[in-house]
């Protein structure tokens, strides 16, 4: 029954946690910039506001794709927190993102289109590394199941420093943070308006935002798995990682898509090198 509790807790609590994390994020960002920043609950106000707005669409199909995006993001995260197969989780997230991309294609708008293409480039950039992260965790813990990985006593981070670093790089892409916020960004309206979400407004945009919260909670959960042998260290590590990501967000400028793609793939190379050494050591030991 544990798995069911995990999944249900995720579905209920992740938006709350995700929203709070987003609020803390904005607060810390503001402080880094010498500002006061918005209230902690600002992300909830924003999403609440979006649901109060008029329902405006370019084509009714867009609402379907975004809804599917939200549903599958939530489902993927639920599989993760139910202790399911990590690779299945990764692929389910890909499915969800494809729905978001299709929503942007469906509206047939130049800015959405650029956002959609760039989003696909992002998927292409982070996918190898995220698969390798799952494989790395398997090599250390002997399980693809999140439940098994979380229960493992081996400190995965000691064996997988390269994989973790690589993951940190693509985490920047996944969290939609600078320097890799190429498909949609609050700061890019001079070039792509709002990229992939340009034509989503009102409640549809609210759904995108909630999906993003769900996904962020999953990503932090993934980071946690590297430190799962000790929950206290794990939570501290997750917090530190996130603050570092915020810091990177604030000190870097947005790169071109070529750089994003190359960075993601180089990060994966780093992961591969780490895994190669690891498998050499285990074979040597055996």
């Amino acid at each position: 029954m544990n798995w069911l509790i995990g999944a249900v807790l995720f579905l209920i609590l992740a938006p709350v946690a995700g929203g709070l994390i987003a609020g803390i994020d904005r607060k810390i960002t503001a402080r880094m910039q010498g500002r006061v920043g918005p209230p902690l609950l600002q992300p909830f106000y924003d999403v609440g506001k979006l649901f109060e707005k008029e329902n405006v669409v370019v084509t009714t199909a867009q609402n379907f794709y975004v809804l599917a995006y939200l549903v599958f993001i939530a489902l993927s995260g639920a599989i993760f927190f139910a202790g399911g197969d990590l690779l299945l989780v990764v692929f389910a997230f890909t499915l969800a993102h494809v729905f978001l991309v299709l929503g942007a294609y469906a509206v047939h708008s130049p800015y959405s289109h650029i956002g959609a293409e760039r989003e696909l480039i992002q998927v292409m950039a982070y996918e190898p590394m995220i698969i390798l992260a799952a494989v790395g965790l398997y090599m250390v813990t002997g399980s693809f199941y999140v439940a098994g990985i979380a229960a493992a006593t081996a400190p995965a981070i000691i064996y997988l420093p390269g994989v973790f670093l690589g993951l940190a790089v693509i985490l920047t892409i996944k969290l939609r943070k600078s320097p890799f916020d190429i498909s949609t960004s609050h700061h890019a309206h001079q070039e792509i308006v709002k990229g992939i979400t340009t034509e989503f407004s009102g409640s549809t945009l609210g759904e995108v935002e909630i999906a993003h919260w769900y996904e962020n909670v999953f990503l932090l959960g993934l980071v946690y798995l590297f430190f799962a042998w000790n929950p206290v260290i794990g939570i501290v590590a997750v917090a530190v990682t996130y603050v570092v990501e915020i810091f990177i967000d604030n000190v870097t400028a947005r790169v071109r898509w070529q750089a994003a793609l190359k960075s993601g793939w180089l990060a994966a190379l780093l992961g591969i090198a780490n895994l190669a050494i690891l498998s050499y050591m285990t074979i040597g030991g055996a």
Partner: protein
Amino acid sequence: MQTLLFLILFPILVACLLLFVKRTTLRYAVVALSALAIGGASAYLLIRYASGGAVYFAASSEAADLAMVAIEMALALFIIYMGAKFRNYLAIALAVVQAALIVYLETSFTGSLHAANNLFIDQFSIIMALIIGIIGSLIAVYAVRYMETYHHHHPEVRDRQTMFFFVIFAFLAAMFGLVFSNNLMWVFFFWEVTTIASFLLIGYSETEEATTNAFRALVMNLLGGVAFVTALIFLAATGPASGGIDLARVLASGDAAVVLIPAVLIGFAGITKAALMPFSSWLLGAMVAPTPVSALLHSSTMVKAGVYILVRFAPVFAGTFAGFSVGLVGAVTFVVASAIAISRSDAKSVLAYSTIANLGLIAACAGVGTYMLVWAAILLIVFHAVAKSLLFLGTGAIEHRIGSRNIEEMEGLIVRMPKMAVMMFIGIAGMFLAPFGMLVSKWAAIEAFVQAPFGLVFIAILAYGSAVTVFFWAKWMGKLVTVTRNAERVEKGFLEEPWAPLYITTGLVVAAVFLFPVISSTLIEPYVLAIYGVTAHLAQTNVAIMLLMMALLLVLPVSFFLLGRTAKHLPVYMGGRPATPDLHFAGSLGMTREATTQNYYLTEYFGEARLFRPGAAVCIVLILASWILAGVAL
């Protein structure tokens, strides 16, 4: 056994009958009825033999053996004649070499050219038979109306439809023969027939391009054929140790080192037939043929013969460096072909590269050959056949309606041809998205490679390969679902194209997801269990999750009818410029301009010119390495 013989002989009979059928309606009736019979017989095989293990049939006949040799010689003469006619001396040379080798084999090793059992059937054969029998014959049905329209659109092409359908059914017969034969001489015979059949079909339009490409396919496959005969000679010469030309005995042979050499040679033949790099160009060239031919070559016949033989020999490859090398050829092909697919805008070209990539993946699984990987490889064969046939048939239908098979031209298909777009959507989803089969198999392959020795190399390649796969499929999907305004709807009055095969294959793609646990447990797992003594299967919970995902995918579109009906419609944001819904806006100097959107092809990174040569070079080195490693192992 009668069913097996029926499946091999009946299509030949139909083929001969079709030589005399000139009217399309009559032809349609004949093809549809025989498709029904063939499909029914394959389904009967499933019911009759699925529960047991491998069943062998003696079916020995001197006459059949002789007839095969005679036909092989006749085919060689035919190649020489065609080669002389079109001045392709390489084809002649290869045909001569191959014929000489066959004669040498037949005369020098008369004693050891007998298999105890010539025919057999096991679960893997059943799977192949179902693919050939159901998907192959559906394509044949589709082809009847398609060819009628094809000649309507291409009056310059000589109408040789009787020959066309003769070859199609002969092709099906050869494929059945190939997967049912336990005698490797027989396998080789059917192998050669598929080579010639594809040669004839690719060259159908008789244009210069078609002829060149047909000969390219012929030469590459003959190269594989020569390797195949060499393997046969080796097997015959080492009869007692290797098991001779009896497939079952060869696979069960205790002398792994001796069997490895013919396995690598036959594997090379498989590589040529499966169009892995560096031989991928013949499959790309094959797209000059009418679309049903492409569908047939890519999904149920020809290339599947290549991977069939590789998967058959997987137990021999398992754990050897030579096999590892063969697997790497597949893996490199997978990543390079997937990457090149990004740079292509021609739908058939994208499909071709995707086929090459997936065959590479299957070959990678077969080369490494652990039980989990064989399980994954067979799954890949099944799901690829279903989804790819749908995509080709769909592309053919779209091309007839909109006059182009460029993906950019398919923009807004959801408005122009909604039914077709939904079917293509399902087909593409079947190729790369969870919970559809291809992704499941890919996932299973990753989990299996982790446990294989040096599997990390494959994991690394797979990780990049599956990332680029997402890119090129998703952008195509995006074009299909783009809701363009003011587009003319061209689906209505669309009677020329046969819808039934399209509906059925679409149904198969969806059904495959639901039936996949059943397919796995009744067919694939028993086969793997029989070969390896252990079997892989997907965990119950994961199956449940995937069924849940599929159910959600089927339910979610309902929301389409419930949501947003009351929404206010606004045109897209065009930087504040007033624009018409079809993206015309008032530009400067009072000119009306149009904004168009195009997909990214990233040619400077993923272009064919940039990637093909290095990929092919690596594969050639790997193939040579597999031979050397097999030799060293001996």
